[in-house]
């Protein structure tokens, strides 16, 4: 089996080789951008299916952990790796023929590098490095469109993101000072029994950094502007790739290191606030992309909310619900944002000129985000309502249902306009259309028969929940 470190290595290599490739042939960068995530996907799937249920340590530089930087590969990280790279393939394939500026491809590969690195790494400082790579390439990608809304969004993101990243680093330093190690598993081991107050502070700092990337309230203020202004494929990247890698890190670190009621409660409140504020904001929007952006933020909040409920009910179903929601959202939002290419510029919710294909794609994506029966999102919603009820907090349960109604309202408002608009037949990018169809079929097929997603998800979650094994193996170093 291929060593996963190749994922990181190759991404880095090709990112630097891009200008050269660009000189060789116009189209070469685009192909490279397609091949790399596809390769990563292959490696990840291969490992997922063939690997034993024991985490694997990949050493770098010949140093054994906890001294060297190492990668920690278990099914949970592989699951996210698959998700992130699948989205990568989606983006690369859809825009394969269009983007010829090699600078975009560099940024894209670096972004993917950051995401994959975050997911694979077992070292805390390493995670910061990859987080920064992810963030900086995102800043550039967000601002890649040379128009005022995009640039404005990028600047805001840059400012908030930088501050957040600094605090993340501060947290890392504190943990290093307290535990003397940078290996995540080792830190978890050392902090298992006694956490001093300063550790909590470190955790808070790290959370601030992570909240920016995962678009949680009140640090997600940059997100609506970026979603509205950036190119559609960048919006796809933000909703389905960047935030998903960041939320992986959030889940992993919280569960491994900061497994404490205080943190879960904080995540619960932050997630709830994010969800409520974002969904109501979406209701007030006139611009379609901004509305979708708020919807993304809301879904992230809901995922974090579900995750945090583990702290209350200690039932793995909480993680199941959160991760299922993340998968559904990644795919459905990718569908929705990429589909915006088929609609007019600056589309508002009173959209008038549409084409039937894009209306259908929008409808399927929207129905899945809403959790309509016979889409993948339905199962996610059922799981979330299930764990909410386990908490016996009826008020929270009905509040979430109320917000679901709000969500349904603003999505159906657009769907109604879409299917009553005048029809305009635009030339469709065939590769984009193909990718959209594949994703929509996946959503509906999994809606009917979600066994496939469920079984993979269960495998991933078993790995996550097996904290003891993870710690002993990775910290011990094989």
């Amino acid at each position, binding site marked *: 089996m291929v060593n996963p470190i190749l994922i990181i290595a190759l991404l880095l290599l090709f990112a630097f080789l891009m200008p050269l490739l660009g000189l060789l042939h116009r189209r070469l960068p685009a192909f490279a951008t397609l091949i790399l995530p596809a390769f990563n996907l292959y490696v990840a799937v291969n490992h997922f299916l063939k690997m034993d249920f024991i985490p694997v340590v990949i050493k770098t530089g010949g140093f054994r952990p906890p001294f060297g930087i190492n990668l920690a590969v278990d099914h949970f990280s592989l699951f996210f790796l698959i998700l992130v790279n699948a989205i990568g393939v989606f983006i690369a394939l859809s825009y394969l023929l269009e983007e010829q500026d090699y600078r975009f491809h560099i940024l894209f590969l670096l972004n993917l590098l950051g995401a994959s690195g975050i997911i694979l790494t077992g070292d805390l400082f390493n995670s910061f490095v990859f987080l920064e790579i992810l963030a900086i390439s995102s800043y550039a990608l967000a601002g890649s469109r040379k128009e005022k809304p995009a640039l404005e969004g990028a600047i805001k993101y840059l400012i*908030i993101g930088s501050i957040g990243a600094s605090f993340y680093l501060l947290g890392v330093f504190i943990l290093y000072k307290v535990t003397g190690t940078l290996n995540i598993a080792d830190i978890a081991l050392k902090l298992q029994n006694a956490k001093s107050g300063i550790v909590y502070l470190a955790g*808070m700092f790290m959370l601030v950094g992570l909240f920016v990337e995962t678009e949680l309230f009140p640090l997600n203020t940059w997100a609506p502007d970026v979603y509205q202004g950036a190119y559609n494929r960048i919006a796809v990247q933000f909703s389905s790739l960047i935030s998903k890698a960041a939320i992986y890190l959030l889940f992993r670190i919280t569960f491994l290191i900061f497994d404490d009621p205080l943190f879960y409660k904080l995540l619960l409140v932050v997630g709830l606030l994010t969800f409520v504020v974002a969904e109501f904001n979406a209701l007030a929007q006139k611009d379609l992309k901004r509305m979708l952006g708020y919807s993304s933020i809301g879904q992230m909040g809901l995922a974090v909310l579900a995750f945090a409920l583990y702290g209350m009910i200690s039932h793995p179903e909480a993680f199941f619900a959160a991760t299922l929601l993340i998968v559904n959202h990644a795919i459905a939002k990718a569908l929705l944002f990429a589909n915006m290419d088929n609609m007019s510029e600056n589309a508002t919710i009173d959209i008038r000129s549409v084409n039937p294909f894009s209306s259908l794609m929008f409808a399927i994506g929207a129905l899945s985000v809403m959790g309509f029966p016979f889409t993948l999102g339905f199962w996610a919603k059922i799981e979330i309502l299930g764990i909410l009820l386990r908490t016996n907090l009826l008020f929270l349960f*009905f509040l979430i249902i109320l917000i679901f109604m709000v969500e349904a309202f603003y999505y159906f408002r657009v769907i109604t306009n879409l299917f009553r608009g005048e029809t305009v037949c635009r030339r469709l990018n065939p590769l984009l259309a193909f990718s959209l169809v594949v994703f929509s079929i996946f959503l509906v097929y999994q809606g009917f028969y979600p066994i496939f997603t469920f079984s993979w998800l269960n495998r991933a979650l078993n790995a996550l929940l097996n904290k003891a094994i993870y710690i002993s193996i990775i910290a011990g170093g094989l």
Partner: protein
Amino acid sequence: MYNINLALLAILAGFLTFFGALSHRVLRVASIVIGIVGTLVFAFLYLKPDTMEFIRMGVFAMSFNLTDISRFFLWIIISAFTLSLLPLIHEERSPFFYLYYFLAFGFASLTIMANDLLTLYMNFELTSLAIFAILLLGVRGDIKKTALKYIIYSLVGAYFYLGGLFIKFKYSGNIGFGGIQNVSTLTQIAIYTLLALPFFVKIATMPFHNWAPDAYYSASDSFTIFFSAGLSKVGVYGLVILMLKTFAELFKSNLYLPEIIAWVGGITALLGGIYAFMSDDAKKLLAYSSISQLGYVLVGLGLFTPYSFSAGIFHSVAHFVFEGVLFTTVAGVIHRLGTSDLRRMGGLIKKMPISFIGLLLGIIAASGIPPTIGFPGKWLLYEAIIMKGDLFLVSLVFFASITAFLYSYKLVHSIFLGKLHKEHRDVKEAPAGYVVATIIFLIPIIVFGVFPGVIFEKIYGFTKPVFNHDVFFTFNSLKTQIGFVKIPVAGIALAAMFAFSFILYLIAGRSYRAKQEDNYTAGEWVDEDFASHYAQEFYGFMRKAFGKLLDLSAEKFWNGVLTIFKAFSELTRRIYTGDVRDYALYLLFFLIVLVFLVGGKL
């Protein structure tokens, strides 16, 4: 296995018709006919009681089962569907329309065959989605607003249902139709209300009815036949299942819940009737009439005595029949005239006699006059309410039934009686599809009106296990503790007296045909164009009688609720000021909050 296939066959037929419609008019007609024939053949041959499980995932499995109740309602839906397809042959619609039509039917059938609450939810949602799609292809009115209103009302109801489903699961450990043990009455009532809400929306109970008049008005006319006569029965089915299987004990023991629901039904019946006769549009009038008649059904179901429940179900069958024929004939008229405005019609009895007979029998049934199908349900309902001792409720229901006379007459007079307008001189009878459907509808109006026992027998089959009551009917008569009626006698009496009256008429002098204009005009000279048709503000004088009552509007209330939500969203929107300095401040404040949180541990 076979029962699901009915629905799957319908969906397949939908796609067939889609492609057929895409190609050629003949193929369109052919595929519709194939759809009708296929559905009927399949239904006759293969519908048998059977259970089936589809997907299994942990505690949940998508399961279907064809019980007696399911079969009863399924037959109503199948009949409504096939009969509504007959007029559809004459309408030109986009290919997608036929697809959604068959889809709506398929999912409605699946909903009725569902064997647990979640399966029911899933298929119910898809039925609503299919109907939403059909409404988007509507023909008149503000289509966007109508379709959006419909889907939002349906979804809100469905979300409450979902909440109720989970709570029920929490207390009973399963999502089947069984009851819940060991919970307080209040909790049970709360769960019932949550679960029943989407069905109340579906049968347009007030105050959740606002989607109905617009939706019926907008939708294509043949679809409205299926919509009113068939699809509303999905809502009735849901309520019947909930009341008979899950909450039977609650209804039997609680004093207040049956009363409240029955009164809601009664008020719906009354207000529906009033809005009906104040309407100036044929389809809106029929929409309100449908709402009103379903109100009687709700009274019967809600009161939960063996007689009232049977009466409610019987009346829903009657509703299917007479609303079916009413919508069919009106659809035929609209097809020929191109308008549905009652003020512009008149005198069509000369041109469309078969439609007239259809409409006439329809309104006689809607008014509940024996020996039509509208009578037994109402008769039994009155007896049931009186036996329960609810004198004010029975007065309300009686009051509501008087409004039926008013709107019935308005409908028949404005369309068929009176003066024929000049532009309608060349109107022909409705096309064959409409006429055939009308005639087929007329058969059960009389047959089941005279022999209601046939239907009561089926109803008895599934109500006896719950109520354990004795048989109260024979083939053609009904008997309760306080009253008795033998329907054929009423029919024969009427027929005999009519014959006698007719003989009197014949033996006395002869009559000559006077022209329309040869009329009493108090000495004024008039010509052909004299406006002698009374159609504007037909019951306009009643506005003064009702006064403020007509200003009550549930729609204004729900719009108000929506405005509150939107206002709140405007508030939250302002958090995102657009100024990055504010955003940085948010970060700072958040950090300070976090530090405080941790403060205790330091």
